[in-house]
């Protein structure tokens, strides 16, 4: 009987991936003037995570056998790496770069829906069955470049999605409570997709339905002998559920971060007061001396239970 190669030995770093990670690292030092700056750890955590999920056995499993593993990779790249890259951008930038970024942030602030659409759209777009199956097309191409395209797209989408919340220009951030709505609606968008994948017919994604793919038949999910004994249907359900449930918790974590930020914000700085009621008379500030609060019961007709 053919014994499969150990999964744990399947580390594959394509040249394109190495170039991408190196390029992003170089970009950091280019932007920071060659210095390590505050929150640089976040940036390089993102790069580390990216390298890890794209080169590790998890990636191998995702590409060749398990949709659920593939989904974990997607979520890490889109919802962790992208936002962490933005969070980890050097605070002190060269003035021209800072100006450009500020202009971009300001523009994006006026087009928040674009950022939202990038984050949700990439999820939906990549999981259209035809697109999804096609994304595996160039696995053996030189340098692994075609296979890296979806990864770059997800990184960009993740960065764009998180930009209005944690981008480098604090003035262009969404109000934290608006950010909660932003994240929540995105969460619903992804949950719906996760739900669709969970309850879709098991052969919706042909890539995983084809047995014996890439010469490792024992890893193909419709073989009962695969290491986890997952059936094709189980695997697809798990993938959908990963997008549906744990993914929601990432958004929820973001929401809690924003709520904490809102409540911890400087007490002294009050946001602008609520706008006056339209067409119902002006609101005049009065001095405390002129406060005339109604006296206890008996004054005027009441609206009671009578």
């Amino acid at each position, binding site marked *: 009987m053919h014994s499969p190669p150990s999964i744990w030995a399947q580390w594959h770093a394509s040249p394109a991936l190495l170039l991408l990670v190196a390029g992003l690292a170089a970009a950091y030092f280019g932007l920071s003037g060659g210095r390590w700056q505050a929150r640089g750890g976040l940036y390089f955590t993102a790069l580390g995570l990216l390298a890890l999920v794209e080169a590790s056995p998890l990636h191998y499993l995702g590409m060749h056998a398990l949709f659920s593993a593939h989904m974990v990779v997607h979520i890490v790249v889109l919802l962790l790496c992208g936002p962490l890259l933005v969070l980890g951008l050097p605070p002190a930038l060269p003035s021209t770069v800072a100006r450009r970024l500020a202009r971009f942030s300001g523009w994006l602030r006026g087009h928040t829906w674009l950022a939202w659409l990038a984050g949700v759209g990439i999820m939906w777009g990549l999981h259209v069955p035809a697109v999804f199956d096609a994304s595996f097309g160039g696995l053996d191409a030189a340098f692994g470049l075609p296979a890296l395209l979806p990864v770059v797209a997800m990184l960009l989408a993740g960065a764009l999605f998180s930009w209005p919340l944690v981008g480098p220009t604090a003035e262009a951030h969404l109000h934290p409570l608006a950010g909660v709505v932003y994240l929540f609606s995105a969460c619903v968008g992804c949950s719906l997709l996760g739900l669709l994948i969970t309850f879709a017919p098991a052969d919706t994604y042909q890539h995983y339905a084809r047995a014996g793919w890439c010469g490792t038949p024992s890893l193909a999910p419709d073989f009962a002998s695969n290491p986890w004994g997952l059936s094709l249907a189980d695997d697809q359900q798990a993938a959908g559920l990963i997008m549906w449930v744990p993914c929601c918790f990432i958004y929820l974590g973001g929401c809690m971060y924003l709520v904490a930020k809102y*409540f911890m914000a400087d007490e002294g700085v009050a946001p602008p007061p609520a706008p006056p009621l339209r067409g119902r*008379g002006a609101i005049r500030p*009065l001095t405390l001396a002129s406060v005339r609060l*109604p006296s206890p019961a008996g004054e005027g007709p009441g609206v*009671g239970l009578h």
Partner: protein
Amino acid sequence: MANTTVLVPEPARPLPGLSINSSQGLLQWISSVDHKQLGIMYLWMALLFMLVGGLEILLVRVQLAVPRNTFLSPEAYNQLFTMHGTTMIFFVAMPALFGFGIYFVPLMIGANEMAFPRLNALSLWLTLFGGSLMYFSFLAGGAPDAGWFNYAPLNQFNYSSSPGVDYYCAGLLLAGIGTITASINLVVTILRYRIPGMRFKDMPVFVWMMLLTACLVLASFPALNAALAMLLLDRQLHAHFFDVTGGGSAVLWQHLFWLFGHPEVYVLILPAFGIFSEIFAVFSRKPVFGYAFIVGSGIAIALLAFGVWVHHMLAVGLGNTVNGFFSASSMLIGIPTGIKIFNWLATMHGGSLRFTVAMRFAIAFLVEFTIGGLSGIAFAIVPIDLQLTDTYFVVAHIHYVFIGGTLFGLFAGLFYWFPKMSGRLLDERLSKWFFWLFVVGFNGTFLVQHVLGTLGMPRRVYTYPDLPGWGLLNMISTAGGFLMGAATLLLVYMLVTAIRRGPLAPADPWDAYTLEWATTSPPTLQNFDRVPPVRSARPWRDHKRPDDADHLKPGKKKGVHGK
């Protein structure tokens, strides 16, 4: 805005063509668009339906008091328990919570009226007529009889051929539209009509929870309304949405129902959490402990509501993969709720407690709701769920949550706000009698049902064999039910006598913190002429104790300075 107060704009035309002093009596109420009158009518409606729904379940309990009873026919039994559940959730708990919301949200945020007064009236009447329509089914050939969640295929024409389920659909659609319009009204009111100076972080917790509740309603009710419309199509026009033989899916009903139904659980509990937060703070003489955590965990609960509904379907057979995910996520729901419980305990800690009846209900809630919460966590464990689903353990769980949580919240709110709404004080001695009767009756009814469920007694069967212990436990449960019934009658008596000849209530009988106490009891048609400046979550207290105001001690809001 130092030391300023703000003139509150008056509603343009609060009661078109009718004076508040008019002699038109009932007509004046029916045509009212005043949020206080509408709120009170919501509460009366809830009380009326509570009496009806309570009567229905007492008949059921009589039937179940002894084994092999023939007091009710199986058909009547099915109709009664279905109507009891539907009534209590859609026409008692929801209208009562929204009644408090519609009455007190504008008062608490210093507004004179809701954003859309006429829409407000429409919401009330839609809900009332929705309920009436559902009850009309008794005269039209039979009430709904497929349980309050009305599962397919039982809700299909060939299994439930009386028009009851059609009335269920129509009644709930109407009431659902009323609830959605009321929620839109609340959201707009809270977002746009807060008195200038009141930031989100200065809003009373009750207002926060009503905002979250309204958002939950807006996100979840469309699923129910769509499902009801689809079911009506199935039954009336022979569509096949839920008809398996015609290519439909019975499980689809469950998904749609619980996509609504689980957020609905939080719709019913979040406002109660808001009420409790006000009450614990006022009667402990402390700011609520960890305001940000209470609000933040409320937001977390609202968001999680949409990620866990499948735990109602663990026994459906969706597979271990699905069950595993939802089992795990459901256990996580316990965290934000647990945070709140500890917040309230910490609010009481070191406070000078006043054991008014409102506070007693709040403390009883901590105990009862925790029991319901723990049995809920037990259900998140799939093997336990498979064993106990559709037994009396579920019945016990749902009642510990809805009575120990929602209804106790409503009672606490009623005893807290009654003086404000009526201008009268309730009889303290009778109120305590009511409290003890109800709490003892409640635990007598439902605590034993945990045992019955574990022994394997299925719910929704009209009678049962004489197995060891079953008869006795059911008899205890029935006796407890009648105790609650007696307590409810006592409540009605207390309310009526207090409204007629109770002692006059002062404007601020509890020395409370929020703006509704800054106006008269009962408030005049125009809630406020002007209100004190809002610079903390306890503006009325700041106004009464300017030297000790919260905004002078920023740490105080977080509850760290004790009293």
